[in-house]
């Protein structure tokens, strides 16, 4: 297979050294895999070739962008070919009139926004890793970000996708029209984590940059005051562009790095952003401040200019990285709870941390109830990984029982695969498995992800004798 791949691509873009395989065996999360080869295509045609060659050799294909994922979506847990899209990073076309762009899957999220800025446009999904992560990865995980509260997640910004299917055929799903004729399969492909197809080009929507913006920083002496403020703001009919919470531990870690003057004495801070016309923005900022005051805010300040605003967001978006100061490893979770149950869930989250003797930090998208509890640990301590996993499973269960969801934006990947039955009954899982089977009957694309073993009610993946009756 490797020889065939070398013949199809430049030989230096097919790698099998021990070192390269080690590096491509992981993403930004905790899972590890062992790929047999790494291929770096530059064109759609090369992706087709790789998929066909891997298919002939019955090898799995795992697509990977920048490898900033946290749920092991791009980790080759069952070996095979890691297909890296970083060199398919061309912005093919920006249409400022239609406000769309055709991009390669390896384009970095923030690069697209920078390229669109001269036209007064940007790409709205803004995961915290946006300076590094790729649009392909955003599509695979239906990524959100602080600003998806008002703007929606990636699926709301994808018009069409050119995809290579597991049998090597090339299809275009969707069109420039917002409502394509026939079945709208974009929603099936977006968020499928490379299990149904590999995106080789995407037509994405670009959003006009708002004429005015206000970013507020509010600090509180308790998490519940902050959480009440979040519910209060939304109950008053304002949907801020972003509404983010960081707890004291996180603020300390970030402050230690950036010295941005964040209030490290507060139990929690809220970062709220409103965008739009100046008058509306001012009214909404006033209302948020009023709700915060009513909930005993310690301080309320408004970012004085673009530099201050950028610094606040840098604090928020670098939070995950900054935690390494506390312990060498972290396990970051991604779950959702109804906003109304934020306070009780947060209390349970800290309680789980205490019970398992794990330092728990929290930084999250409070506006849409998307929690990101971080557990800090040292993986070199024996038994630690199991302990963390047990605590993590409890966390998810607490959130799902509160009426929440398994994942807000990071995807299921391998990490939460076996927790899927918490959310879905056998009929639900069977329906999803049927979709997977339709696209990928031989289970070649990113096997072992999203759907737990046995999802198909009558799982036929095992070798059945011909004529067997199930």
């Amino acid at each position, binding site marked *: 297979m490797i020889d065939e791949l070398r013949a199809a691509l430049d030989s230096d873009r097919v790698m099998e*050294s*021990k*070192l*390269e395989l*080690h*590096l*491509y065996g*992981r*993403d*930004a999360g905790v899972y590890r895999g062992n790929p047999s080869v790494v291929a*770096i295509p530059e064109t759609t045609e090369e992706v087709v070739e790789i998929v066909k060659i891997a298919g002939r050799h019955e090898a799995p294909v795992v697509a990977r962008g*920048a*490898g*900033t994922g946290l749920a092991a979506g791009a980790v080759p847990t069952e070996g095979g070919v890691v297909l*890296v899209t*970083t*060199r398919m*990073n061309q912005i093919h076309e920006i249409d400022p009139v239609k406000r769309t762009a055709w991009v390669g899957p*390896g384009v*970095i999220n*923030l*690069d697209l926004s920078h390229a669109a800025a001269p036209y007064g446009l940007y790409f709205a999904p803004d995961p915290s*890793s946006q*300076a*590094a*992560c790729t649009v392909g990865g955003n599509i695979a995980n239906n990524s959100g970000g602080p600003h998806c509260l008002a703007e929606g997640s990636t699926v709301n910004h994808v018009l069409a996708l050119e995809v290579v299917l597991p049998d090597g055929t090339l299809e275009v799903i969707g069109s420039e029209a917002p409502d394509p004729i026939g079945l709208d399969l974009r929603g099936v492909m977006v968020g499928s984590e490379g299990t149904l197809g590999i995106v080789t080009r995407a037509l994405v929507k670009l959003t006009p940059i708002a004429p005015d913006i206000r970013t507020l920083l509010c600090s509180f002496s308790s998490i519940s005051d902050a959480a009440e403020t979040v519910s209060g703001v939304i109950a008053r009919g304002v949907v801020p562009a972003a509404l983010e919470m960081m707890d004291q531990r996180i603020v300390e870690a*970030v402050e230690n*790095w950036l010295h941005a003057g964040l209030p490290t004495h507060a139990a929690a801070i809220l970062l709220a952003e409103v965008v739009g016309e100046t008058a509306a923005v001012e009214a909404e900022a006033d209302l948020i401040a009023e709700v915060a005051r009513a909930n005993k805010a310690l301080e309320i300040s408004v970012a004085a200019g673009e530099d201050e605003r950028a610094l606040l967001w840098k604090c928020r978006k*670098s*939070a*995950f*990285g*900054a*935690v*390494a*100061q506390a312990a*060498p*490893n*972290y396990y970051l979770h991604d779950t959702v709870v109804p906003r109304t149950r934020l306070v009780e869930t947060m209390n349970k989250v800290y309680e789980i941390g205490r019970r398992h003797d794990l330092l728990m930090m929290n930084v999250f998208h409070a506006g849409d109830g998307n929690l990101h509890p971080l557990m800090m640990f*040292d993986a070199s301590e024996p038994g630690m990984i199991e302990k963390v996993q047990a605590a993590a499973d409890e966390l998810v269960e607490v959130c799902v029982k509160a009426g929440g969801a398994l994942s807000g934006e990071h995807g299921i990947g391998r990490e939460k695969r076996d927790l899927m039955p918490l959310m879905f009954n056998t009929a639900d899982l069977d329906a999803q498995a049927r979709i997977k089977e339709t696209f990928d009957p031989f289970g070649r694309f990113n096997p072992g992800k999203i759907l737990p073993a046995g999802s198909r009610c009558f799982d036929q993946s095992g070798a059945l004798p011909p004529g067997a009756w199930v």
Partner: protein
Amino acid sequence: MTAWVTDFAPTTAELNSCVACGLCLPHCPTFRLTGLESASPRGRIAAMKGVAEGVLDLDADFEEAMTFCLNCRACEAVCPSMVPFGRAMEGARAEITAQRPTARRRLRHLLLGRLLSNRGLVGLATDGVRVMQRLGVSRILPGRLGRGLRGLRPLRPVRAPALNGSGPTIGLLVGCVMNKWFSGVNTAAVELLTRAGYRVAIPGEQTCCGALVVHDGGIDEGRRLAAINIRAFDNVDRVVATAAGCSAHLKSYGKVISEGAQIAAGAADITQVIAELIASGKLPTLAADSGDVVLHDPCHLRHAQRSTEPPRQILRAAGYHVIDADPEGLCCGAAGIYSLLRPATSRELGTRLANLIDDRGELVATSNPGCEMQIRSHLDRGYRIAHPIELYLEAIRSSG
């Protein structure tokens, strides 16, 4: 069980501080060029970790991954976990030197350690280059050599600067290459510091700071040079270097040898000192309008020292309107001796920066000799490239 054999190896704490978030990736020039994990800071740290844990071998692939790095430390400046990447990389290269010895590298370290620290030899080389410049040899020399020669300034005979003043004493690290080939910068430094009331000492026993050889994994030579400088600058209040690469390395002397902590604590880049003096009014802020200048930040100032304001403050005080050469701050490709070891990658980055400058203006300022040579050799004639303090001193003189 560790795979390392030197006391300069990457430490477990250094390697563990990386959580593999990947925020460094887009800031890494070699990752930008290749898209490869092994050419990214995160990948390089993971490779070091792999070797440390015995999962990977310290083999040719490891050496390739480490030596492809420019050690520009752009990753370090954007790392929320504050991974000391530059330090770890120097450690990994020291290990490569120890565990994969080659005659070529030994010779290189000998040259970097002994030739650059020998003023007579640098002087001799200088004379040779001066003659070649007179004869216009650069035009007929092939590729790399010709480009290298074009990158140099027209050499002027070096004059020993006069020592005056009675204030606190600044020890000037004049630099191995800097003092011969960029003497105008040292002359300007002495004049500005003296004007501001400092006494400037230039100890004769000083030597090359050792940055180039330590970056290349030559820790033994690097420690020898550091020890000489620590003795030479024993009697000054603080040591100041006129090249960003040297000032960054002086600040890391404490990591090179334990006796280096004191000199490191007081070390500064000349731009930082002059900017302070302008801010405190000891040096003038001019009302003149000097026009546009395109500023290139050397990596070892911008990233390694997180210092971006001082050169801008100096140029603004000189009446210039400052335009950033490259808002992304990618390395120019000079990176010490990288331009000699990896000419193709160096050229790719040099051309990229030259194109950016080309769009922006004709007067360029930068504060590191390697960057200056690299930029000059990639730009057409008709551009002037100078150190911010030279432009500042000129502005003071012409304003009377």
